[in-house]
């Protein structure tokens, strides 16, 4: 038996360490489709409880939208369940090409290549496009999948302080001798809802002859007046060399991702991207539903408009109630608590009030920046938002944090 006592004991010790540090992640069972109101069994074995969901990436409420579900059913009937192949052998159907074309038109890029996930798109891009004579210059808070993707590339790695354009420019000056440079950023940063200053980034890209790459997973479908993403929001449509994004958040939320950008980059990825060449094609049912999603959001901006209104309302009311909200316009609304235990306690109390929102703390966010990350959806109705605001207000009063700022909360609870 290869799974010897030594290995068993090592894994158990690791798990004990994780538990001891308070970092053990428990899964909660959701017993309903993904939407604003869900039924949850937590802890496992407890009676199911109906709660309002404020922690999904279901920004547009399309995850269980009847037209999307219907399109998935139709796709299943017309194109089958699986393809049992990678794309280049016998895994490309007409609808895969159709979805790639629709994404290209929607994002206003030159071409698009699908991946099983955005994580895999990020795992592919840098290894294909950059080599040892090149430099990757990334914002320090980019998503973990970008960090992993950059590790797979031979290019030299540089990073700059979060959103700090002076520091980015210093790094661009430092790397002048490299063959190619790529500035790498999230469009929207998932923990803070911060929006990357893409106009300035593109300006620096032009000035120093560097390509610009954006992971737009937390904005495709709703940021910008037509919902195209951060590049539309910042007025730089057509200027981003490579956008990676996901179909697993606002765009139906099932699975799949893509690289969309310069045709040469996309073509080369089709030839050389290992996660594309060696993982299965995106299932037809997901492709069919995603085509419907792009049609829906191209035809009407009602969803992103409602999301914008919901976000504005929630941010205003929470601020008025005295909660410490990280400022911004994005539906990711970090309610700052600074202390890890306080964040966990508030999350637990919210759940008891029927509000499902998760506490995040170090090492997921920097030390002393624990928070509840609230995510607003177009699926939320005003009454849902009011219920969440009332719950936060009640619990905020319980812990005496209403109207308190960072220093005061830290003085009460520590970092």
């Amino acid at each position, binding site marked *: 038996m290869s799974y010897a006592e030594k290995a068993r004991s090592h894994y158990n010790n690791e798990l004990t360490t994780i538990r001891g540090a308070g970092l053990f992640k428990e899964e909660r069972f959701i017993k309903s489709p993904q939407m604003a109101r869900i039924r949850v069994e937590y802890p496992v074995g407890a009676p199911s409880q109906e709660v309002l969901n404020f922690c999904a990436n279901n920004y547009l409420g399309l995850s269980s939208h009847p037209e999307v579900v219907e399109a998935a059913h139709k796709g299943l009937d017309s194109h089958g369940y699986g393809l049992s192949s990678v794309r280049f052998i016998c895994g490309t159907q007409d609808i895969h090409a159709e979805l790639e074309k629709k994404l290209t038109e929607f994002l206003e890029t030159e071409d698009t290549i699908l991946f099983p996930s955005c994580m895999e798109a990020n795992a592919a891009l840098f290894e294909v496009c950059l080599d040892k004579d090149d430099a990757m210059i990334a914002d*320090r808070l980019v998503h973990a999948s970008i*960090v992993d993707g950059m590790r797979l590339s031979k290019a030299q*790695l*540089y*990073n700059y*302080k979060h959103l700090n354009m002076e520091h980015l420019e210093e790094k661009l000056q430092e790397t002048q001798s490299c063959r190619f440079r790529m500035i790498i950023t999230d469009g929207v940063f998932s923990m803070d809802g911060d929006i990357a200053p893409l106009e300035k980034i593109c300006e620096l890209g032009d000035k120093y002859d560097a390509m610009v790459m954006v992971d737009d997973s937390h904005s495709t479908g709703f940021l910008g007046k037509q919902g195209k993403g951060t590049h539309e929001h910042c007025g730089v449509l057509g200027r981003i060399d490579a956008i990676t994004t996901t179909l697993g958040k606002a765009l139906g939320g099932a699975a799949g991702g893509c690289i969309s950008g310069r045709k040469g980059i996309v073509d080369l990825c089709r030839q050389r991207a290992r996660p594309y060449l060696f993982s299965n094609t995106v299932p037809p049912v997901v492709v069919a539903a995603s085509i419907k999603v792009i049609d829906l959001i191209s035809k009407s901006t009602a969803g992103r408009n409602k999301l914008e209104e919901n976000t504005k309302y929630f941010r205003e009311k929470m601020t008025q109630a005295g909660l410490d909200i990280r400022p911004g316009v994005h539906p990711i609304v970090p309610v700052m608590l600074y202390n890890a235990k306080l964040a966990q306690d508030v999350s637990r109390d919210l759940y008891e009030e029927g509000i499902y929102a998760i506490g995040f703390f*170090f*090492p997921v966010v*920097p*030390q*002393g920046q624990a928070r509840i990350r609230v995510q607003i959806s177009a699926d939320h109705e005003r009454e849902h938002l009011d219920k969440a605001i009332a719950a936060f207000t009640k619990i905020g009063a319980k812990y005496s944090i209403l109207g308190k700022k960072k220093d005061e909360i830290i003085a009460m609870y520590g970092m």
Partner: protein
Amino acid sequence: MADDIKKMIIDYVKKEYLDEDSDQQVTEDTKLISSGIVDSFSMVSLKMFLEKKFQIKIPDEKATPEAFDSVNSIINLLKELTPL
């Protein structure tokens, strides 16, 4: 000599990792990685700085979060790799 090197590394850490308005103190004992001032992703800048400054190559197996966790531990690493 060692004090000059310590000061140089502290100055670099402050400039490279802290915001201009930060009131965070950095001394030779300050925990850099385990306190979150420098995360494992950002550590690469510090490694490159040291390599360039001392004209050395820090092998990946030596560039651990423990070795980079304070200015003192960095000095110990440098002593292994170069005659300071």
